[in-house]
């Protein structure tokens, strides 16, 4: 018997399943995990740890873990597989994928992943080594995180998050830090799962230090109960609420005038005839289309904003913020112009608190009070959750919310919303707004990426393919056929795939599927070759998303399993004779290079925070000139300003100003459907026991949340003759699914909330583990993305509920 050693490492990946960042101490004895604890020295979690990470001993040695590569010997969807060696598996994969590449081109292979963990870089590495640009995040409308990131890149050049002093040594006690006076939690039960590279309970730390909360959520969450204002919003109407906040802030002049004048595009002239920005090329011979025009009232003339130089063409220009100006165009025409600020105000003008109450169900008085409290609080932060992505008009919504933190002067200030970049700018792979070490060898290979030409953001920031278009193309085979799928830690039939029967058909149609995962899943039943992957405790890795910079350090090996990075590295070498790296550690070293540390050096330290005045560390970077590549003050937008009027949206032929549009399947937009389906259906509420479709097989976790539940208000339940704990059918025009009724007042009368990600790994009588039975995605269509290819109507559909038929067991689904 050996003695116990303690390995210090970082959670990110299979295991807790989250977006990671906790420091943990893994107690290892004889190559076995005997215990895991939070690392008290780690600045991120300070010793704390969630239920899912604490259940790792049950996860890592689970009897159902895949421990050998498998080859399908039966039909797709059956449970006929036989064990093969790793060498044989790699050989088959190499042969089959190369033949697809030879016959149809590399783009005919799609490389698909699930939630954002330590898989993105390695799946890109493999796809790019193979030569395919088609890396797919398998959710309709790519509706998780990248829409929010792309939207903020569009209007402010960089993403931002709430500041919980995560960049500062000593955290909350650091002298530079200020505790937010107010925090808006917008559609988030963040404490359940730590999404988006943030530790959810930081907000509880801040509440204890005095932060007052405004919660925007239709459900009575932990935060809603403890809020100064709880705005119980109708799902899908968030943009109207944000515009209502802006209406109040503008009307009461609660905005930061200095920020507005210095750092936004407010004074830029917008043509009344076309509704477009006036460009230098409109008024000056050989003028640039990249330069904009303002009006200086004192000098009574227009002045050019030179984008390249980030300055006015005339020194000491005082541009007018508002007004109607006559401008003579080059072509001799005379037109009238207003300012971008006038246009922006005009967009917010109709959204009076009364009107917003009608749309959102939130009382006008509460909207007004909450908006004033937010705008008056210094500093104040907003944090939003994935429901923001889960609506088709996601970019105008983000634009409106971004304008809130910008106009109130809360951008990149201590305790506000601060810009986030990969720590030390150590970027592994292309994410919205960042170029990584791992990229396509030749930009020309990006040409066939699915969705790229149709959707502006996919051309500018998002380097994945558009998911709905991929599924469409699998069936249409236009403009080229999709033949193969690499599916890594991704389970579309149970979790990430909307309309899962459509996904099932798509999986049936493909010639070759590789599945990489830790446990057998319903989706893996469609794979030709299955490879057993590893947990975070079984691998080395690097994490720079967002801060601190840290390493993942291998603590144990589980015989038969291999880490994602090792699997993809081996195959990348086989597909690309010029593959750049000899060893995985060479690759890690290159990713970490901007930090000046090698993998081994960083691993010794454990973690590192970027130094002062580094572009990846707050504060006031737009003032210090740390955001733009030219080193000038301002933002990394095309025009250098925070754009109230988006130049990119204008370029993409989309509305450049924020707006609200009723989503596709609501009581308002579809009164015809509402007659038959009188309840708003929402899904995706988080359970601390699970991360999406994972963990149903971990006994300590499953016992905490044993059944798929639908939350129903007591009055709605009794109207439908449903009692607490009874099985009910939730159905609409798309399909149905069965859930256990949780009759509770945390949900409004007009809505039900159904849990997502349910399948039953314990029910082995069905090779698909009854994955369609309690799968709420059966009721959600695909192909409802917004005009920029982003977003999906996941939080606001319609349904009806009924008790399951007596006698004949449960409904056949």
């Amino acid at each position, binding site marked *: 018997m050996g003695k116990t050693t303690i390995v210090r490492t970082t959670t990110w990946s299979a295991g807790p399943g989250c977006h990671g960042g906790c420091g943990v101490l893994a107690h290892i004895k004889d190559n076995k995990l005997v*215990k*895991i*604890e*939070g690392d*008290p020295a780690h600045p991120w979690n300070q*010793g*704390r*740890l*969630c*239920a899912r990470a*604490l*259940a790792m*001993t049950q996860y890592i040695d689970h009897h159902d873990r895949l421990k050998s590569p498998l080859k399908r010997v039966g039909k797709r969807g059956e449970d006929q597989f036989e064990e093969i060696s790793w060498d044989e598996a790699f050989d088959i994969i190499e042969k089959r994928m190369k033949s697809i590449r030879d016959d149809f081109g590399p783009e005919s292979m799609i490389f698909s992943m699930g939630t954002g963990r330590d898989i993105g870089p390695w799946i890109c590495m493999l796809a790019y080594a193979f030569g395919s640009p088609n890396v797919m995040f398998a959710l309709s409308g790519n509706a998780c995180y990248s829409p929010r990131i792309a939207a903020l890149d569009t209007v402010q050049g960089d993403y931002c998050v709430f500041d919980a002093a995560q960049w500062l040594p000593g955290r909350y006690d650091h002298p530079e830090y200020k505790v937010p006076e107010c925090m808006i939690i917008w559609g988030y039960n963040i*404490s*359940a799962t730590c999404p988006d590279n943030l530790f*959810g*309970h930081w907000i*509880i*730390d801040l*509440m*204890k230090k005095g932060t007052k909360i405004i919660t925007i959520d239709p459900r*009575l*969450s*932990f935060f*809603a*109960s*403890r809020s100064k204002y709880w705005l119980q919003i109708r799902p899908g109407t968030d943009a109207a609420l944000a515009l209502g906040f802006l209406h109040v802030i503008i009307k009461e002049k609660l905005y930061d005038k200095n920020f507005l004048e210095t750092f936004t595009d407010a004074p830029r002239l917008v043509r009344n005839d076309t509704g477009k920005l006036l460009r230098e090329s409109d008024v000056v011979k050989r003028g640039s289309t990249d330069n904009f025009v303002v009006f200086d009232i004192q000098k009574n003339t227009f002045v050019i904003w030179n984008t390249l130089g980030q300055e006015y063409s005339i020194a000491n220009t005082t541009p007018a913020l508002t007004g109607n100006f006559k401008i003579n165009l080059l072509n001799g025409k005379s037109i009238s112009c207003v300012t971008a600020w006038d246009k922006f105000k005009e967009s917010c003008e109709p959204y009076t608190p009364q009107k917003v109450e009608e749309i959102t169900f939130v009382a006008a008085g509460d909207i007004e009070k909450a908006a004033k409290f937010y705008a008056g609080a210094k500093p104040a932060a907003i944090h939003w959750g994935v429901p923001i992505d889960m609506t088709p008009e996601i970019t105008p919504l983000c634009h409106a919310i971004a304008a809130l933190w910008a106009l109130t002067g809360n951008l990149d200030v201590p305790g506000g919303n601060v810009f986030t970049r990969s720590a030390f700018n150590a970027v592994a792979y292309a994410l919205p707004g960042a170029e990584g070490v791992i990229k396509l060898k030749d930009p020309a290979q990006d040409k066939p990426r699915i969705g790229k030409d149709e959707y502006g953001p996919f051309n500018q920031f998002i380097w994945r393919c558009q998911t709905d278009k991929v599924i469409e193309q699998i069936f249409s085979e236009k403009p080229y056929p999709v033949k193969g799928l690499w599916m890594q830690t991704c389970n579309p039939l149970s979790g990430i795939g909307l309309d899962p029967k459509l996904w099932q058909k798509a999986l049936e149609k493909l010639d070759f599927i590789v599945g990489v995962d830790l446990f057998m899943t319903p989706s893996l039943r469609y794979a030709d070759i299955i490879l057993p992957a590893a947990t975070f405790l079984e691998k080395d890795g690097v994490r720079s998303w967002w801060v601190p910079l840290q390493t993942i350090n291998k603590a144990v090996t589980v015989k038969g399993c291999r880490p994602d990075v090792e699997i993809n590295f081996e195959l990348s070498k086989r597909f690309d004779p010029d593959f750049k790296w000899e060893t995985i550690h060479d690759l890690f070293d290159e990713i970490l290079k901007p930090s000046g540390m090698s993998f081994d050096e960083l691993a010794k330290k454990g973690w590192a925070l970027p130094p002062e005045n580094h572009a990846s560390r707050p504060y006031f970077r737009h003032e210090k000139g740390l955001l733009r590549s030219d080193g000038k003050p301002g933002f990394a937008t095309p025009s250098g300003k925070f754009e109230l009027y988006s130049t990119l949206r204008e370029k993409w032929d989309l509305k450049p100003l924020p707006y609200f549009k009723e989503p596709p399947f609501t009581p308002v937009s579809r009164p015809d459907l509402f007659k038959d389906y009188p309840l708003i259906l929402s899904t995706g509420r988080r359970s*601390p*026991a699970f991360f999406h479709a994972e963990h149903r097989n971990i*006994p*300590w*976790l*499953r*016992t*905490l949340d044993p059944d798929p539940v639908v939350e129903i208000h007591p009055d709605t339940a009794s109207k439908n003759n449903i009692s607490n704990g009874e099985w009910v059918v939730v159905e609409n025009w798309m399909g149905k699914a069965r859930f256990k009724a949780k009759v*509770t*007042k*945390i949900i409004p009368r007009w809505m039900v909330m159904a849990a997502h990600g349910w399948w039953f790994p314990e029910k082995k009588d069905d090779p698909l583990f009854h994955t369609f039975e309690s799968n709420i995605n059966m009721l959600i269509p695909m192909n409802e993305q917004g005009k920029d290819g982003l977003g999906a109507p996941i939080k606001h559909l319609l349904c009806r509920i009924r008790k399951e038929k007596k006698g004949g067991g449960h409904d056949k689904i």
Partner: protein
Amino acid sequence: MTKSSKNGLLIDYEYCTGCFSCTVACCQEHGWQAPLSGIKVMEIVQDLPKDKAYLTFLPFPTELCVLCAKRTRKGLDPACVKHCMANCLTYGNLRDLSCELEKKPRMVLWSPR
């Protein structure tokens, strides 16, 4: 003030988020098989006037809780206290902890079996 001969847990239920870290931490520490654990977390939806409600989570140590005697002898916090995501559990001498009750609303004090 004289110490009590007993220790217990001070529970700040204002900040308990219902995350179940305590429950699983106890399972790991003591090898309990599901559904056993030294601490359960209850969800309580309080009815308030005017059709309002209030959501509370209350961690409740069970008959199985031994206050992590092995850990505390070594000067360590109990496993649930150490890992509590909201830092809302405090282990200590019952008399000391009872003084804490006055300092902040919405807390309960638990003494072991």
